[in-house]
């Protein structure tokens, strides 16, 4: 823990943080913690990348935030609301305010691109209206604007299963931004994509989030990609945080500590 770095800028950013995690613990099996009492504060702007080896709990951490995974103990404070304690309607209302982008896109394959983008509004549209596709006009206009922004306007009526991986992730990003979220989570958004498409997807996500002032928390195990796009980096190893600082401050020693060994560096 002594090597955990706290750069000056994060504590100087006085305005309320996007998210504050206190003592978060997750055990899938009793007595085998995947997250070991983690505490982090996420700034209300910029891109925070969580890096670390596979199986170290990065995904679990992200999924605890919007409760796709149930935390075992701890607090997740989101603008004063403890997400870990919410149930039913209150949980759904909190989820509306948090967008999520998935590793395998998680689009509804048999629905069209437009229907997938509009599904970002499902927290707000009543079931009968959603089923009859009676979305408010402003939602439809917002969806078209987003499709323009991700360059898929002419695919609006294509089924999601007709798209390539990069195109699907663009739809996934549009769906998440469609929620008009106050926080965007991304769980390994580029791991299923080729290197060139990965960079394009990261550029798109960062540009959309920055233009709308949405703070982003993303898991990524590609260190160069994290360094290139993140404004803040969290390093995880074996369920604990071992680095919390700027991309510039991340040294080879830190990487050795996060991933173990050193032969892979270079």
């Amino acid at each position, binding site marked *: 823990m002594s090597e955990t770095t706290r750069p000056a800028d994060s504590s100087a950013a006085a305005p309320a943080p996007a998210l504050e995690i206190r003592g978060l613990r997750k055990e899938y099996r009793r007595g085998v913690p995947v997250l070991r009492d983690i505490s982090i504060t996420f700034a209300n702007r910029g891109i925070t990348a969580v890096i670390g080896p596979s199986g170290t709990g990065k995904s679990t951490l992200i999924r605890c935030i919007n409760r796709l995974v149930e935390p075992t103990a701890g607090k997740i404070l989101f603008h004063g609301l403890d997400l870990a304690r919410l149930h039913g309607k209150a949980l*759904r209302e909190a989820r509306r305010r948090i967008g999520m982008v998935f590793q*395998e896109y*998680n689009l*509804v394959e048999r629905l069209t691109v437009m229907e997938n983008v509009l*599904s970002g509004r499902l*927290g707000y549209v009543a079931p009968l209206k959603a089923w009859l596709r009676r979305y408010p006009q402003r939602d439809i206009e917002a969806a078209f604007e987003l499709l323009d922004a991700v360059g898929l306007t002419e695919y609006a009526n294509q089924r999601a299963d007709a798209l390539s991986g990069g195109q699907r992730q663009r739809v996934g990003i549009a769906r998440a931004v469609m929620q008009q979220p106050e926080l965007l989570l991304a769980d390994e958004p580029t791991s299923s994509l080729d290197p060139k498409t990965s960079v394009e997807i990261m550029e798109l996500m960062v540009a959309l989030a920055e233009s709308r002032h949405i703070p982003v928390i993303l898991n990524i195990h590609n260190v160069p990609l994290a360094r290139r796009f993140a404004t803040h980096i969290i390093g995880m190893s074996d369920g604990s945080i071992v680095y919390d600082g700027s991309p510039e401050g991340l040294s080879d020693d830190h990487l050795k500590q996060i991933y173990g060994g050193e032969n892979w560096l270079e």
Partner: protein
Amino acid sequence: MSSAAGPAQNRPPPFLPNWPARIAWIALAAYAFYAASILDVTWERFVLGLENGAKFIGRMLPPDTEAEKMTLMIRGLYESLEIAILSSTLGILLSLPVGLLAARNLMPPWVTWPTRLFIALCRAFHQVIVAIIFVKAVGFGALAGILALTVASIGFIAKLFADAIEEISLKQVEAIRATGAPFMNVIAYGVMPQVLTRFVGFATYQVDSNLRNSTMVGIVGAGGIGGTMFAAFQKFDYDFLLTILLAIIAMIMVSEALQNRIKRLYQ
């Protein structure tokens, strides 16, 4: 290559024999031979049967198309069609919620367990037995047939629908849940698009099945062409029987063509 002798001896066999499965197949074959041997099938019985069959077919020809009997037949067919369509509609509508409640990946055990028991009860008896019960309950006529085939439809569609839901990709469901969507929206966007084509497939198959069964429940007095057909049998009215059989075949073929159209609508 020359030094391969050493390590090769330590290798496991590339394919493991599945002895329980082999024994089960051998036991099945042995029982089939035994059961056939005690059936007392003789050549004389076979020849006698052929003669009876030829006599029966001779009396069927030519089919009887007398006007009075034709109206009787058309009335019966119409009632069968009514039983098939109403029971299918009711069965399909009820199977949707029942199937959802039985899906173990969406519902807690205290919901799926009783629902699955209910579906098993719907499937437990043959339609004719269920029809007899409903004839006792609501009296002779089409209503008993409609109720009996509705029960059969729920037993078939709801079970297969629940199984189909249990095979969906939960990633798509997860994404919809993450948007904060209420449960019904999760069903409408995360679940239904994944299972709709299969549901339509099960439903059209059940319509076909109900159409065939609706011609049979009449035998126990539950309405439809079955009653007329059974009466023709009893009165040795074999030429009229042939007319009815041909009409049923025509009806099934038309429905088959219609089903293919419907399935194509929902690809």
